[in-house]
């Protein structure tokens, strides 16, 4: 909850409301990937995050 609250304040401050649907879809998709057991860092030559 704290994260969602912070995200809301962040998007409000940055005036980036248009990111909301994107975040929703990506998180949904991401959750599916996580549930399907997708792995993370290993395939990257260099992570940019």
């Amino acid at each position, binding site marked *: 909850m704290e994260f969602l609250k912070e995200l809301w304040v962040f998007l409000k401050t940055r005036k980036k409301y248009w990111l909301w649907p994107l975040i929703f879809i990506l998180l949904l998709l991401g959750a599916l990937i996580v549930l399907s057991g997708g792995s993370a860092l290993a395939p*990257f030559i*260099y992570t940019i995050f």
Partner: protein
Amino acid sequence: MPEAILGISAYYHDSAAAILVDGQIVAAAQEERFSRIKHDDRFPALAIAFVLDEAGISFEELSAIVFYEKPILKFERLLETYHAFAPKGFQSFVAAIPLWIKDKLFMKRMLRDELAKFGKIPCAISFSEHHLSHAASAFYPSPFEVAAILTIDGVGEWATSTIGIGTNNKIKILKELHFPHSVGLLYSAFTYYIGFVVNSGEYKLMGLAPYGIVNGKQTIEFKQKILNQLVDIMDDGSIILNMSYFDFATGLKMTNNRKWEQLFGIPPRNPEGEITQAYMNLALAIQQVTEEIVLRMARHAREITGCKNLVMAGGVALNCVANGKVLNHKVFDDIWIQPASGDAGGALGAALAGWYIGSDRLRTPQLPDGMCGSLLGPEFTDKDIQKIIQKYNAKAKHIQEVEELTNETASFLAKGKIVGWFQGRMEYGPRALGNRSILGDARNPEMQRKLNLSIKYREGFRPFAPAVLEEKLTEYFDLDHPSPYMLFVGPVKQSRWIADPVAGFDSPILKRLYHQRSDIPAVTHVDYSARVQTVHLKTNSRFYQLLKAFANLTGCDVLVNTSFNVRGEPIVCAPDDAYRCFMSTEMDYLVMGNYLFNKEDQPVLPEMKKGAKAMD
């Protein structure tokens, strides 16, 4: 009660912790030195424990905790990048998003959980922006009251480079270059294509560049192709990358290899493959382009700030060849570069930002700077060393007088012996500056080969760095600026060059390296350049005394200084690391504190495999 601020960098690469007490830098160290995992990016629990202990501050007494970047801003960049490039990037998204959903989105909670292991968290956790942390690490410890600030690296949140101005206790960021247009990532893309490991092999690319043929047809062609196809450089030094050639924003690799091969006519080099002249020319071409970009950024920083002094930080600020060019072109009257310019330095920058920004605390610049020679890590007593002697049943001679110790060590060095030199506080940042160093005689024509084969166990194509008495700098190098942190490259003085014809471009790479081209051959690169470290009595008195003793004995004021570490491991931290490294390589002597270890006297360590390999 003193006011203490803890700075933390973590979860990207090179985690570190730093502590300020009443605004003074008291301690800082990378986690890798304690965990013994190179470029360790985990939460720096061991480094935090060390800095708290060193400062004599309990965790509950901290008045502020500052993290070096803003994860939520990074997440925004990530989402917008995937959105902008969609549907390209799905593969990268599939790989990246689980990590965010599992961990990185909840960074604040992760930090809180980790910090709670030290006790009750006494204050809020603040977040500084990545490049603001770099800027703070560059400006606040610098000796300047006012300075232009240039930060250049791969990427932080959005910014990849910034120009700012520091005035007394304030920093103002004036301009930012945003992802994906990044000088650091451009350089890393070439690092990858030429077969080195991204984020650690950039030094190798820089060291390979001098083997390229300056003004050679192929080098010029490569440079033109880079400028025509890969990167557009503006007058102010900002760049636009042609993203059709790069894969890092949406893919798993750095480059679009098919397009690069079409462009340059050479395939990506296999890391184990031969380094042909074409790759050397390509390395030179990108080095020249990078220098041009950095130079333009520096000139623009001068224009818009009107400052006569420059401070720098960020991974690209470790490109000491480019730094040397900025210095030579006299864009600024004076330059100071943060020795821990990479992300490890972000911990210090975050702490400094926490101290000065948003408050009106007095800042008094210190001379030569506020970094204490970057000797901010742990120190060990003779008692600690005695424990190692007992543990390994080692044989060591205790020499109480420093003069006797340095004279004896100097006499070994003069005889061509290789000495592990472990003294005082460990360095903060990527360089060994004379407290965790392996030393040799720079005049010895065999020293490079010997260090490479017997100590480093590699056929490295880079020469070693010289440490020189600061007051003797201009007798050896055409460099009129101190370089205490090995961050400037300058040519060896022409009067010291050896007139013999140099090994030509058709010679194998190592024949060219080992060709004797000056009277300090072990530290002279193929283009007669050297990555200089100046040693001052005030910042490192024992190392200075050793250089002085060597000079008294031989008339030479220069020693080879290379980092004290073994393959796959970070630079040694504790006496145990040092003794094991000493025993697993063919170093002749180890001088640890006031103890002198002769290799011939040591019992064989059964668990040590002879020939364990070392590298810097």
